[in-house]
């Protein structure tokens, strides 16, 4: 063997597929519309430059390319998964992901260990601190993101520091270094901005950071393993990561049952289809009438009267930005 070894490839795999794969990897994610534009450009290139209308690329063609690419990279422990965007009208998003993924492997190539440690603290804030049975925010605003810029202070180092100040100081330094020295606020803001630009975090108009569909796909199994209790009774106990009753995907932005102790959650985007199949708008588990005004995600905060009162000038500005955004979308 050796020389005669040939890598396994799907039938008919060619430069067209390789170009698609390279383009996909550079983008990280693709929506169908982006895929149409990309495939039109690729086909045009393979046919010597003739113009091809992106609208002529069908969903079947696109999915064929996705399937072929997936077959090609699967032996290398990469994967292509898709999910619907919980926030933006449920548009389906395909992502090129690493099959063994946790925040450290994902980020360690381009981020410093301190930054990776910060991201872990940020995720803890999202899924532990700001994700309680009463308030399932699963998102953090800027102030909350800055609050975890440094690791929580270690108590032990002070316990045996009865000698002179100098030594105590050194010990503190060593302990801090062991857990990562944390980030300056300006560094946190830069990191958040680049995580948004890289497509790991979403920043909402109200200023909340949450995980993008890409992150949720990439970190799916890690999130469940890290934040959920494995020995809990699957149905009855409250778990940090919950799944949509309709589509079974993770809910970080959606609705919850009006009964505070009930664990049923639903995406906004799955709601219509879900209720159409049911005789009544009641929780499928506890039969409490489903009013759709109890939320998972940032609306757990923003729908509360306290937040609304405090909005003042910011609300007007946000609406202006929203109008602008819509205007830009329509172009």
């Amino acid at each position, binding site marked *: *063997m*050796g*020389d005669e*070894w*040939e*890598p396994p*490839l799907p039938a008919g*795999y060619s*430069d067209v597929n*390789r*170009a698609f*794969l*390279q*383009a996909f*990897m*550079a*983008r*990280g994610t693709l929506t169908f519309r982006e895929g149409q*534009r*990309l495939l039109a*450009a*690729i086909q045009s*290139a*393979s046919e*010597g*430059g003739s113009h091809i209308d992106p609208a002529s690329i069908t969903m079947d063609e696109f999915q064929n390319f996705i399937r072929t690419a997936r077959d*090609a*990279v699967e*032996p*290398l*422990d990469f994967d292509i998964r898709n999910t619907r965007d919980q926030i933006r009208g449920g548009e389906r998003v395909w992502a090129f992901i690493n099959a*063994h993924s946790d925040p*450290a*492997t994902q980020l*360690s*190539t*381009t981020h*410093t*260990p*301190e930054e*990776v440690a910060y991201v872990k603290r940020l995720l803890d804030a999202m899924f532990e601190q700001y994700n309680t049975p009463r308030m399932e925010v699963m998102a953090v605003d800027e102030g909350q993101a800055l609050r975890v810029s440094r690791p929580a202070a270690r108590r032990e180092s002070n316990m045996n520091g009865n000698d002179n100040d100098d030594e105590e100081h050194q010990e503190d*330094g*060593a302990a801090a*270094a*062991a857990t*990562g*020295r944390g980030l300056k606020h*300006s560094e946190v*803001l*830069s990191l958040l*901005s*680049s995580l*948004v*630009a*890289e*497509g790991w975090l979403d920043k909402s108009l109200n200023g909340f950071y949450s995980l993008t569909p890409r992150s949720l796909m990439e970190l799916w199994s890690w999130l469940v393993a890290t934040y959920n209790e494995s020995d809990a009774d699957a149905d009855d106990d409250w778990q940090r990561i919950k799944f949509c009753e309709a589509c079974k995907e993770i809910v970080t932005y959606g609705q919850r049952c009006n009964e505070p102790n009930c664990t049923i959650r639903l995406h906004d985007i799955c709601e219509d289809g879900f209720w159409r199949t049911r005789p009544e708008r009641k929780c499928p588990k506890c039969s409490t009438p489903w009013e759709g005004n109890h939320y998972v995600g940032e609306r757990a905060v923003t729908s509360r009267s306290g937040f609304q009162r405090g909005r003042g000038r910011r609300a007007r500005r946000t609406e202006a930005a929203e109008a602008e955004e819509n205007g830009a979308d329509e172009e």
Partner: protein
Amino acid sequence: MPVQQRLRRQAAQNVDDDDMGQPHPQSPGEVDSDGDEQMAEVGPRDETTQLIKNLVRYALSCEYSRAPIRRDGIKEKVLGSNGREFKRVFAGAQKQLRATFGMEMVELPTKDRNLMTAEQKRKAAKSQTQKEPTSNTYVLVSVLPEAYTTPAIITPSKVQSAEGEAAYVALYTMIIAIITLSGGELSEPRLRRHLTRLNVSENMPSLNPNDETSPSEKTEMVLQRMVRQGYLVKLTDSRSGGDEDQTTWHVGPRGKVEVDKEVIAAFVRTIYGGSDDELENRLQVSLKIRDRKPGVPDMVEEVAEEEAAPNGDPGPSNRRRGRRRQTEAYDEESD
């Protein structure tokens, strides 16, 4: 604070280990759980396939952060105890990269003899036996036909941010093109003059221009990154004692591979808004490329090989050629 530094480095290593170690330890178990028939023939073939897979993943992850793929790194993080397998695993990974991704690993050229100090040259001459020197360092490049490498298909990758990546690629391509067309060497003041013309003498866009706290970065920092990543080489003659007139800029090994002569020619054509016979002639003379219609993908590899070959004739002839090219560059500018 040395302790902190050491710990930080240790932490970095740990993360690194996590990174590459993850697919590695589970290799035997993972393969087994995939299917029964594989369990029956856990022979050398499976093992090699596993190593090839790890090398492909290692190469991709290095490229992600523009870290060079080093032979030592491959031995340490991919091969482990199978150090003797290097040749076979490397060849397999090349095949896989070409077939699946349309990419391949290209060995970086060794340090240009022109750029060595007299001391280094003496050392190199002593240690150099009959063998051709090799850098044992590789970078991943795309081998897709040129038709596919258009902005509509291959976008700047989203590492840090697509906008920052685009700006960075544009800047190093520009600087490398200027250096190459100036004869492969540019003095510090002349580089600064070009940067001023590009309006980047003080600041350049940062890797993430969306970042409100640091949308731009000091030009010095960006140039340092270009040097660190092997796009540029900055050379200061030690005798001059840091006099900036004696500082010269050259194209680094990664720069030579990624921004080869064809790329520079294509870049110049784009800047000139198209191509005509005169421009093509000048490009041929300046870059020593053969006659070629733009857009026809041939001889790209040849150029890369020529580049990769260690520069055989240093000395005066090279410098004369350099000066001739310099004047041409001036001609182009004055047009």
